[in-house]
């Protein structure tokens, strides 16, 4: 387990129902090559992985040296893992380098994960970005502790603003008014975070706190700098990164066949464009045969001081997420329904995976955003699509 090479090669094709503008293609291709090496030396562990991609769309950036994934677009080659883990004592580890982090208990949306960087180049995939950090983790009896120091901000990667994948319900007639996605350098500072967890019988309890730079940007639409070009008016959009402090509580309980989870986070910022937030989630999960049904409710009890669209990550709340996945003898399938309760817009996703062998798999899926175009999901109506992917793993 501790040593070896693994990875996959995947080709994926998308076809779209419509175009938001002339610059959006009807179909696009996405090829990925991922390789990972793992090695154990004594009690220490080393892991390195890299990804090479070719995307036939504007989501792909130029081949630049971008070790922390801070560039606005995905670079064709990126480092996903480069870390070592050293046991300091029998119950305390130190992990150093570049790695992905997952904190939240609530699937679908978790306030504890909100400070972690995400890559929304494909907004329906919504993958985590790794970060450069030091992580100390330990356990004593039922109590677990985890401390993370991330010295540099890895900002959320947003879809091309003004494209079909950006859920911007700004009121601007997208397609008629061009949006110029300005390249703003993100700040250098990162964040620090501490988490305490304990398990008592059927209960899991946790508290966490963090401070530093919030990786999700605030969008600043510079209508004062709008210009009129040959293709019509263009509004530049800048990105700003605020500092934010937060504290959260998480509780989960095994109640018969259900696992119930609740999380809440109080987030504070002196930035007038961000303000404070009180984000909460409730979820219930139950297994049915070889599958799981998950229902999650998420919301923000405080109004944002600006249009939530400009905060991007908070635009979606409050929201209801229902996800059902199941493993079959031939593969697996999942159906996800997301309803953004504020505007009555939503998203239906479905995916079927067929495992031809242990190493070859074929996936067919589709995403159907619907409803009011004033909502963040309804604004994605031009991104309705079907996709087909072929993967070879090793």
């Amino acid at each position: 387990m501790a040593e070896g090479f693994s990875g996959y090669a995947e080709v994926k094709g998308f076809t779209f129902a419509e175009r938001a503008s002339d610059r959006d293609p009807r179909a696009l291709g996405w090829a990925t090559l991922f390789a990972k090496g793992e090695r154990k030396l004594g009690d220490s562990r080393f892991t390195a992985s890299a990804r090479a991609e070719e995307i036939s769309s504007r989501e792909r950036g130029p081949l630049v040296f971008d070790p922390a994934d801070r560039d606005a677009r995905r670079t064709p080659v990126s480092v996903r893992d480069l870390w070592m883990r050293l046991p300091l004592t029998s119950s305390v580890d130190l992990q150093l380098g570049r790695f992905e982090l997952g904190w939240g208990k609530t699937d679908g949306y978790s306030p504890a994960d909100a400070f972690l960087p995400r890559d929304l180049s494909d907004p329906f995939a919504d993958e985590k970005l790794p970060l450069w950090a030091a992580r100390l983790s330990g356990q004593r009896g039922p109590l677990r502790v985890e401390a993370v120091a991330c010295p540099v901000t890895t900002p959320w990667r947003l879809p091309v603003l003004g494209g079909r994948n950006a859920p911007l319900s700004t009121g601007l007639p997208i397609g008629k008014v061009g949006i110029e996605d300005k390249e703003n350098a993100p700040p250098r500072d990162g964040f620090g975070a501490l988490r305490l967890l304990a398990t008592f019988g059927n209960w899991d309890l946790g508290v966490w706190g963090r401070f530093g730079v919030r990786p999700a940007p605030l969008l600043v639409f510079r209508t004062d700098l709008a210009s009129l070009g040959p293709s019509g008016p263009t509004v530049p959009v800048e990105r700003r990164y605020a500092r934010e402090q937060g504290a959260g509580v998480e509780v989960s309980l095994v109640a018969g066949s259900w696992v119930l989870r609740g999380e809440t986070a109080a987030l504070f910022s002196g930035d007038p464009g961000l303000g404070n937030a009180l984000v909460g989630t409730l979820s219930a999960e139950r297994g049915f045969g070889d599958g799981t049904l998950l229902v999650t409710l998420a919301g923000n009890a405080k109004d944002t001081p600006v249009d939530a669209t400009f905060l991007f990550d908070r635009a979606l709340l409050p929201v209801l997420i229902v996800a059902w996945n199941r493993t079959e003898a031939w593969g697996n399938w999942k159906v996800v329904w997301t309803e953004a309760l504020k505007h009555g817009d939503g998203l239906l996703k479905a995916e079927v995976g067929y495992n031809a062998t242990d190493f070859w798999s074929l996936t067919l899926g589709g995403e159907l955003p619907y409803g009011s175009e004033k909502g963040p999901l309804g604004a994605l109506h031009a991104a309705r699509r079907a996709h087909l992917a072929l993967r070879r793993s090793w």
Partner: protein
Amino acid sequence: MTVKHPGSRIALAVAALSLLLVGRADAAGDARKLLIEAENRHRTRTLQYSGELTVVNKDGKVRKKGWKSFREGYAGDAKDLVRFTDPPEVKGVGFLSLARPGKPADQWLYLPSMKRERRIASQDRDASFVGTDFNYEDMEEFDHKKYEVESKGEQLQDGHPCYVIEARPDVNGGKSVYEKKILYLRKDILYLVREDLHRKGEKEPGKRLLLSDIRNIEGHWVAMRLEMTDLKKGSRTTVFMKEIVFDRPQPAGRFTLRNLNREGGE
């Protein structure tokens, strides 16, 4: 013709009932003694092995998986950690089970894609364990203290005389996905070689576990081959055990949530 007094009939019935109850008590007592003896004989401090697992579905399609398994304690006080090593789709998936006296074990599954563990609800243990014919409850070792047991005589299994014991989950032992288990203990070594598993409402067993290729390693009897058949679905999962080591001290902290969440950990 002899006319029996009604009182003698009652006495006969009471006597017959008493005999039946005594017989049942003896059957239960014998079965319990056998299970206690079996547990005492086969208890080891720790066990670790590599497993090669083959799943054959009803259409004959074959899937293979590899894992490493670590155990400390035994039956009612067992701590288990399983880490899948291949194929790529399950590599790094981890499973931690911590036995609790009189209750279902605490169980968690670590999924590398999520970078965190998921708790398995105690009544959700009929779900397939990582696409195999084992469910989460099957991953626990049999703990006789959580069952009402009764002897059901003797029977041959693979040519070996076996004690047959019926085990029904005790209400105080926590809920089980099974209504009853029929256990076959080899008489000569008191080793469990077969389990017929009846889900709720099933007259015939829905699943069957066969343990075979039994060898003596380091003074301990161990089945090198375990085969779980889902008699309704028509699929079966076979585990071949390799590199078995008994009583090797396990590192402190191996059977913890912190370790389960360590990517690539063992």
